[in-house]
């Protein structure tokens, strides 16, 4: 599971891990595994999302989406994204199947032609509907795809400045992601992703993700209401707001079948 934008949802029942002598790499991985564990087995989830995209030069556009997620055993998951706005592409649906080995497949349903098409994997790291988020941010981001390293502990970024955070470095194992590494802030108490800085190969910051408005659902799962991705160079930014978050609404594997993509939902 865990698209990055949902990783910001991470939740927890467990207390912080017992402290022992471990390398920064081990410590980083342990924290992330802990976070993953806290978010596991949420069953299914539906939510509405709105993206306000600003290109940093005065241009602004809005996208509205409906998202459905199904958590399956292991790393496997299903996700379905339906476009509500802009109206020319309303009804367009994106389906992602992530297998247990974290490989994934994606399809798009085009309502005007009434056809479903596969999407090449090359598109995963590209921008999603003109936003600062990548398609990748919306699809599976399993722990296996990164190397981690615990960097330091410090106070969390505002507005959670009262809390202590772990800062963890995340380096993608594959190339073509558009960044060389990330620095991720997670609070120690709940292991929620609060902030992520993206760096290029020259170690220049290119993007920053901020997650705000965390709320707990089902007495367990934390979800942020607002995610803001800002581009440090172009001044562009995208604000992604979640609303109407519903857990365990009874979605089944069959709801995420490719040949059912066209049916209205």
């Amino acid at each position, binding site marked *: 599971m865990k698209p990055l934008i949902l990783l910001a949802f991470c939740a927890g029942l467990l207390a912080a891990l017992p402290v022992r002598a471990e390398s920064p790499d081990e410590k980083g991985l342990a924290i992330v595994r802990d976070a993953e564990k806290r978010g596991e087995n949420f069953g299914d989830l539906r939510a509405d999302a709105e993206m306000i*995209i600003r*290109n940093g*030069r*005065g*241009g*602004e*556009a809005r996208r509205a989406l409906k998202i459905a997620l199904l958590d399956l055993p292991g790393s496997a998951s299903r996700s379905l994204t339906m*476009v509500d706005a*802009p*109206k*020319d*592409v309303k009804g*367009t649906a*994106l389906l992602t199947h992530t297998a247990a080995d974290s490989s994934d497949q994606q399809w*798009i349903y*085009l*309502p*005007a*032609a009434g*056809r479903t*098409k*596969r*999407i*090449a994997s*090359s*598109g995963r*790291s*590209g*921008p*999603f*509907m*003109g936003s600062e988020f*990548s*398609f990748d941010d919306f699809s599976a981001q399993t722990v296996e795809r990164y190397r981690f390293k615990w960097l330091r502990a410090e106070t969390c970024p505002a507005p959670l400045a009262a809390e202590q955070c772990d800062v963890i470095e995340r380096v993608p194992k594959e*190339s*073509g*992601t*558009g960044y*060389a590494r990330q620095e991720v802030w997670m609070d120690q108490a709940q292991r929620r992703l609060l902030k992520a800085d993206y760096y*290029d*190969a*020259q170690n*220049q910051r290119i993007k920053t993700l901020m997650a705000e408005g965390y709320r707990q659902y089902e007495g367990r799962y934390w979800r942020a209401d607002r995610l803001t991705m800002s581009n440090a*160079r*172009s001044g562009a930014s995208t604000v992604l707001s979640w609303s109407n978050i519903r857990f365990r609404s009874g979605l089944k594997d069959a709801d995420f079948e490719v040949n059912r993509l066209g049916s209205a939902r």
Partner: protein
Amino acid sequence: MFDFVLGRPRRVILLALVLGLLCAAGIGGLRYNGDSRVFFADDNPDLLALQALEQRFSRADTLVMAVAPADGQVFTVERLRAIRQLTDAWSHLPYAKGASSISNYIEARSDGDDLLAEPLLPDDLVGADLAAIGQRARADERLRGGLLSERGDIAGVYIYFELPRNDPEGELSRIGDAVRAEVAKVQAAHPDLRIALGGILMFDEAMQQQLLRDTSTLYPLCFVVMTALLYLFFRSASATFATLSAMVLAVAMTFGLAGWARLAINPASLTAGVIILTISIADAVHLLTTFAAERAVGADPRAAMAASLRVNGRTIFLTTMVNALGFLSMNFSDSPPYRDLGNLVALGTILAWLLSISFIAAWTQLAPPRVSPSALRQVEIVKRLIEWVITHRRRVLPLALALITALSAGIALNRFGDNYVEFFSPRVQFRADTEFINERLAGMQFIEYAVEAGGPGDVFEPAFLRHIEAYSDWLRQQPEVRRVASLNDISKRLNKAMHGDDPTQFRLPDSREEAAQHLLFYEMSLPNGQDLTHLVDLDKSAIRLTVLLNTISSSELEAFDRRAQSWVAQNWPADLKARSSGMSALFAKVARSNFQSMSTGMLTSCALIAALLIWLSRSLKLGLISLVPNLTPILVGFGIWGLTVGKMGMSLAVVASLTLGIVVDDTMHVFSHYGAARRRGATSLEALREAYADVGAALWVTSATLVVGFAVLAWSNFMLTVHLGLLTSLILALALIAEFVLTPTLLLWLDRD
């Protein structure tokens, strides 16, 4: 004041040095502006149009690499690997935000009943059917004349950068170095590839390199030439040293003050130093010539310098002010670097004048130079020349006037316009590479049109798309056009792929929903580093049409744009507009607008100078006569330029103002002496002989210095500077001739008793 200078020379020199070094310390604060847009004023309407376009779409700081295999075979495993390596390099190049080439090109096609938008090249090149891929690529109209040459024998790799522009100088060098290192790596592994680098970013980088080169070649060259000339004239190490020290100090102070003011320099304004060095020597020459003459008749150093300051003080003050006035009128230019150049030179000449009457005057008290009597021999030559002109004046004057008329007619042959590629001499790699790319891969000259469709999503309206298509079709039929690129290329291609690659379906979709959804699908398939923001704006309410052109002159480009605009006016509904912009269009128009705005500056300074000459000679008639030898060299100079070179770039717009200020010097020296003699009751012939005996030699020396000094600029690789130097040099040489041919004959003809 002069008593203090001559009485306490040590203190004066120390004071000058301390003040000079204080000013010069600012040099460290000089910034460099390598942006190609530095040549345009902030309120230039074409620049505003371009900025508006970039506001809607993305600003592309693009770097083009043309990868040319010796045998023209692009589609082999080895060559494609090299292209892939260069393309993928973007992810570790500084400030890069993406790249496109055939290596990451997403091809839309159908496979059986399925629509595919997949990479043209598979990850595994060895197992792929490269011949078939090559065939598809060569047939793909979106690749031709861009990512792949028309003949399919050269591939283009385009890398897009987004510069923070906090430290343009450092950013540009970092990109340049990183790109060259990457190219060297690929070149080492594939010695049979030629990789040419072009694009606006390379232009900026080339400008920066030429700035460094100019600093390290023009300045030393100018210094050596000036030393040689001064020594030749003075035959005195002391006089040469004092003059050079003062002038170098003036240049250092000028750039130091510019640094304190946080001015950004570029290759155009950098030439200020050479010009200051050249122009300011005149003051010292006049001062030291009189000083030597006084010494020769037995005066002590203090009396000799006091006499020299008395004789020359007013004239060198006035000539300095007139020079500065000419340079300041360069502020009428539309190009900020030339305004900076004018202001820097004006400041420098005033500083040099101050140093002449303080530093040099004081120096003569400490180490009185022994100036050789060679100056006297030169006076003899001048005297004989003037006598010859006077004797033959009835033949000389008509001949001169006929020549002036004939040569001035050449002005009409000049054509306005700058082509940014031709800013650099053919010796510069950037120019060779860009010409190669332009000829073999893709047109480097282009016009861009931004077309507003109305509201969000309206670019998908079939009626709008059909208007764009009709315009594109018309554009493609024009002889100047090589290629038209717009969103329609993708739309048509997707529609065809959607319908089983049926060639009859290579057309626009029927509904806006289809068009929008096809495009969304295609966008979703694009890899990181590629997007469509350069073709369509964020809320899909406007599109950008890029028209790549053959190499055409600026006036042809302007004519083409006018034709295109009138097609739009006739064939499109009134609410649909295609606003043209782009760097080529900007450079095409800037020279003409520079000349137009500079003509105001020229007339202003002309009027002021005429008024000054009238006042100086205390005679309306003399003042008006004196305009002739001042203006004809400029007319004849531009005429000869039209007959020989014929191209007028923006740098030449300032030449008239620049030279007018300098040419007037000579006339002022002659006329002030002539006028004085006339007022004492001398006949015009006597007054003429006296004036030339007084200043004739100094005229030769200062003019020779100026002609040679400006000619030094021809050693630049920056053609704007080369042309500025050559034309100025030519006009100043003509001015000297005019001073010895026109002035005496005109005076004898018109100022009779």
